[in-house]
Structure formats: structure tokens, C-alpha cells
């Protein structure tokens, strides 16, 4: 019984360390993005510069998502999807961050404009 408790604690410590390492690596490798990429069903729909204020109604799935860009941040202000998870995901500004609306299969991603080649590889089929 004692052994099991010890193994449980080891497993928990290992998982916590893994989460920490993953988190630090995300923090370390993130850079501010330059563009906002919108995809529906994995296909690019449009791109907007992150530096210019914008309010755009995006048709997706059988509804819409309202994309807002302001002060170098992008977010989904409102949507008519059933769960509204995209609205609750908040604002994004770093390269690779995204807001996802699963019911509409819509994804809003911040991409680094200065490295289009790298992004083309990273965003390819299957990631």
C-alpha cells in the first residue's frame, strides 16, 4: 500500500514537471505575431494585419463569428455557435496562438508575418 502511494506521488510529480517544461518552452519560443489567419475546415479564408483595427463578421459553419482586432490583439467578440467557447477563449497576440470554434470548424490564428516560409511548413497538413 505504501509503495502505491509513493508511485502515485512520483507519477504526479512527473506530470507536474512535464506541464512545467511544456509551459516554459511555450513561453520561451513565443514571439509577437504580425498577421491574423482565419481558416474554416482547415482552409485559409482570409488574412488581416494584427496592427490595424478591424471588426469583421466571418461566415462559418451554419452561422457567423465576429472577429475583432485592436491594439495588436485579436479575439472573437460574439458568435452564434451553441457553446460560445470561441468567445470565452479571450484575446491572442503571440505567433501560433489561436481561438477555435469547433462547432463552426473555424480557427483564428496569429502568425508571424516575417517568416512566411516557416509558417507554411508549420501550418501544413497534419501540422
Amino acid at each position, binding site marked *: *500500500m505504501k*509503495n*502505491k*502511494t509513493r*508511485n*502515485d506521488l512520483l*507519477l*504526479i510529480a512527473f*506530470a*507536474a514537471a*512535464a*506541464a*512545467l517544461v*511544456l*509551459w516554459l518552452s*511555450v513561453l520561451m519560443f513565443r514571439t509577437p505575431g504580425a498577421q491574423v489567419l482565419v*481558416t474554416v475546415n*482547415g482552409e485559409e479564408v482570409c488574412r488581416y494585419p494584427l496592427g490595424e483595427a478591424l471588426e469583421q463578421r466571418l461566415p462559418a459553419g451554419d452561422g457567423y463569428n465576429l472577429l475583432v482586432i485592436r491594439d495588436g490583439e485579436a479575439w472573437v467578440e460574439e458568435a452564434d455557435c451553441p*457553446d460560445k*467557447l470561441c468567445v*470565452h*477563449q*479571450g484575446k491572442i497576440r503571440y505567433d*501560433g*496562438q*489561436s481561438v*477555435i470554434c*469547433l*462547432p463552426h*470548424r473555424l*480557427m483564428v*490564428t496569429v502568425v508571424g508575418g516575417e517568416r512566411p516560409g516557416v509558417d507554411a511548413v*508549420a*501550418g501544413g*497538413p*497534419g*501540422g
Partner: protein
Amino acid sequence: MRARRVALFGLLVALALVLSYAESLVPLSFAAPGVKLGLPNVAVLFALYRLGWRRAAVVSLLRVVLVSFLFGNAYSLMYSAAGAALSIMVMGLLWRTGRFGVTGVSVAGGIAHNIGQIAVAVCVLETGRLMFYLPVLVASGLGAGIGVGLLSAALIRRVRYPKGDAQR
């Protein structure tokens, strides 16, 4: 004996179903899409320790199908099924080794569930960028797994039916 087993199955699936509904009342999705408490895992862990991993898998997958039919859609079925399948596989393996307590098994299951879900999301949305969510998903799986594990351990210790632990 057979009728009792059927009744027990029904009870556990119903319990998992109710717990699914209960956890849907606690929105945690601001952290990352799809983050949940994992309360239904209490029923699955109980099934695992009392009935064995095959029957626990049946309880888990039945719950996923029923919940998706009742509250979800085809996509939520895909995500939950992948999460539940990976979760029960990992929990079954750890349980079979006999070297981990309920909490350890639960933590591993919680993290596996989240990883299974994100893996499907990566395939559906065809992007690797979702890996940004990994730290949050591992951490939330860990935290939820500890809570659910402690709860399940207390339950398994106290409820002595069916008699004794399942054969590993």
C-alpha cells in the same frame, strides 16, 4: 447473478451520465477548449477496481455515446470517444501493473483523456498549433485527476459491492 450484473452496469452508466451533466454545469473552458472536471471518471474508476478494465471500458464508452446523443453532436462524440478510449487504455494498463493507487491511475487517465482529445482536434482542424494548449491540458488533467482520484479512492474503499477487488 446475471441480472445483478446487468443492473450494476445500468447503475454505473446512469451514474456516469448524471456526473457528465453535473460537470457541464461547471464551465472551465476559459482555460482551454474542452477542459472539464472529469467527474464521470468516478464511475469508470469504480467499475475498473470492482469489475475489471473490460467492463470499465464498456461503462466509459457507453457514457460517451449517450452523452453525445443527448447533449452533443458528431464532433463532440469524436473528441470524447478518443479521450475516453485513450484514458481507459492507460488506466487499464496502470491498474493491471498493480503498482499504482486509485489517485495515480486517475491522474494518468485524466491527462490521457486530454491528450486524446487534442490529438483528434489536431487531425480535424489540420494544424499542429494546438500544441500550445498542451501545458494547460496536462496541468488540468493532473489537477482534476487528483480530485477525482481521491474521491474515487474513498468510494472504492467504502462501497464493498460487488465483493472484493476485480481480478487483474
